[in-house]
């Protein structure tokens, strides 16, 4: 079934890029389950400020993380373009609140550069690497590190 073409492009992968303020970030498209508009979340008590609360995703309770707050960036007002990117991390579904989806990128691994030392610790732990494309800089998010308390609980 597999065509030769598939083999030659097998080291390529696709990312979904999105904006937070002026910066561009991306996640691997394979972990994205869906992208949906913002709907008001029910706040959760006793949770960090970057947890916006939970919403109803077709009968499942989906926690929403404000990615700007998580990365320590200024939190923007919600706009009509604000979207929730539903990603699967391990067995969990989590909604990432971002300002807007900007692009779908097809990249090869050699385009990904390691994160330089200059970034602050928090950003560096959440960013897998930097991608340079058409003069833009896009940071790929390390999804599994976004929810440290889950790891702590699991351990």
């Amino acid at each position, binding site marked *: 079934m597999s065509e030769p073409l598939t083999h030659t492009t097998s080291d390529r992968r696709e990312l979904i890029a999105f904006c937070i303020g002026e910066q561009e970030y991306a996640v691997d498209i394979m972990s994205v389950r869906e992208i949906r508009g913002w709907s*008001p*979340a*029910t*706040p*959760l*008590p*006793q*949770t*960090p*400020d970057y*947890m916006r*609360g*939970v*919403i*109803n995703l*077709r*009968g*499942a*309770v*989906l*926690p929403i993380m404000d990615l700007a707050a998580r990365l320590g960036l200024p939190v923007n007002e919600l706009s009509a373009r604000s979207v929730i990117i539903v990603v699967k991390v391990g067995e*969990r*579904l*989590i909604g990432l609140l971002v300002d807007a989806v900007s692009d779908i990128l097809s990249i090869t691994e050699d385009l990904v550069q390691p994160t330089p030392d200059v970034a602050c*610790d*928090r950003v560096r*732990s959440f960013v897998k690497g930097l991608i340079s494309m058409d003069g833009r800089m896009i940071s790929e998010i390390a999804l599994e590190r976004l929810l*440290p*308390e*889950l790891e*702590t*609980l699991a351990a």
Partner: protein
Amino acid sequence: MDEFEEIKATFFQECDELLADLESGLLAMESGGRDPETVNAVFRAVHSVKGGAGAFGLEPLVRYAHVFETLMDEIRAGRIEAETDLVRVLLRAADVLADHVSAARTNGQADDAASAAMVAELEAWTRGEAAATPAEAVAPAADDEDDFGFKPAAVSFDFDTPAPAAAATWRVTFTPSPALYAKANEPGLLLRELARLGTVTAELDDHQIPPLDALDPEGAYLTWHVTLATAADETAIREVFEFVDGDCDLHIEREGAASSSCDVDISALLAAAQAAPGEPALPQAVTAPDDIDISALLAAAKADVAQDPPAASPAPAAPPIARADPAAAKAAPARPAASESQVPQSTIRVDPERIDRLIDLVGELVINQAMLAQRVAAHGFAPSSDISMGLDELEQLTRAIQDGVMAIRAQPVKSVFQRMPRLVREVASQTRKQARLIMEGEGTEVDKTVIERLSDPITHMLRNALDHGLESPEERIAAGKAAEGTVRLAALHRSGRIVIEVQDDGAGINRPRVRQIAIDKGLIAPDATLTDDETDNLIFLPGFSTASQVSDISGRGVGMDVVRRSVQALGGRISIASRPGEGSTFTLSLPLTLAVLDGMVVDVAGQTLVVPLTAIVESLRPKTGEVRALGPQGAVLAVRDTFVRLIDIGCALGFRDTAIRPDEGVVLLIESEDGSRFALVADAIQGQRQVVIKSLEANYRQVDGIAAATILGDGRVALIIDVDALVAVRREPSRSPEPLSFAAE
């Protein structure tokens, strides 16, 4: 999981069902149901476990099941009578079989000593010895360590070939018919099975294969000639082919048998073997006729004539027993016919995840339908308009679907109950008490989520009933009761809940002693006046245990307070009624499902929250004078002369910093699990509603003070408050707002 492992997993699932059938069949036999159908069902269960285990090469299981099966076969053929003592042995044998199955499932090791003891016991019964000396046979199983004296018997599997214990050579000619292949049987597997009996030399005879143009693709053209060197007898060899009986041409011949008489005997042997696959004495027609006659006579003498007349026919001491057996062959067809008439209940296996997903989707459908109805109403359509009527129909359909889907998850409590007879047997023998378990309402259905959590409380209540409830046989006789105590386990539906009752006819609760213990442990004041009921309920208090020494039977270090707490965590209640000298009844009442909860929907600080209805004693609007300040921030509410602590839900959950004035909101009077009362302050009450419980942990994690979430009619998530945790949260004012997350960075 690869394909093989999947099939194996299916086998173990089937084993669970077979073991359940086995147990219920044996229990039916114990209570007098000795009809051939019941005995056959028991035999089939053991046989199927063995057959499946053989296919997966689970040697210890096969070996054990074989011994069990042999004895069952003797009983089935009426050669051994299933007297009560024997059925009890069989019940214990079934327990050991279950151990073997679970050992095989986990690739673990079964308890060899117990198994060997049971094998010895079963073999003794098979030889008809145990009937004469039951005490001797029962002893080894009672004490696992001292049974090694029986071991020699345990290894001898050749008990049904008394004379030639040494290996013999057999010629097996096996010609499958097309029907065999059509039924998806595989000659290779049969040959492999055969090879397990001894050394096999197989030769394929492909002379019958026609030229390609004449070949019927669904035809059968192959014959195998197998030379088998084995200590097993013909019965064992035939058993290999039992499932393809009638779908193949099969000749089994013993090498070195007197060839002149062979032709005659073989057909008779065949007939006999087909009639009764477990018939032990076949080859000995030639070798040792005398031995056989005695056993045949014994069997005939023992056989219940009314139940199995053919067994009586060998009684005339006809030397070639093979000749007597065709009579059995004629009478026998009734038996397979009877077993075929039992049509298995048709069921399908479904991954529970698929059902859960369906339930989620139906829940979503209900919400969507409610939203639609709200919007239609908002647009001012008349209730008699087409669109409103259509919506009403949709609503009815939706409810019907929801009920239907919930019914899929409903399971009879039988799956929990069927583990209990074994428990009672074991606990009874450990405590040296005699107990009979009566189970009622096993067909009562309850949601899967509840089923899973029923097992522990029931186990505990039963252990408790046997350990503390029932008296010793001597005490019972002295009190004028039967030596054997009765424990009744019943399940029933009552007003939308499932009720489990555990009733014993023991001594009842020793109230003076309970009271004394409660005083000694400081649970009540020495001069407290308690009603009988209140005294009985003391046993549910944390830190109470009546056993003067903590026994590992009702204990595992757990008291009734733990049972009560776990029951309450499920939204249930447990109560006790006791009459001195007549026994006690524990009653457990649980919601039918844990997927749905009755809740009070309240507004707090702009949020909609749900408080479980089971926790709410009453809701009230306090008058100004009833709220009293206590300390800088605390406040209490006077409720009929008692003061209860007031907790502002908004503050406890961190939704607001300053509490609202209780007299401006609504107060919910709560009784917590430990019986203490407090009052929750909410802004307003929206109403009472049944809500579908959604887990927060599935995608996030547990949140303090929140039990779960639900989705309301407007499609938004509402949180369900964990009232007991809320009190605990409230008691720790110095909590940090972000407990774990940033510490890691």
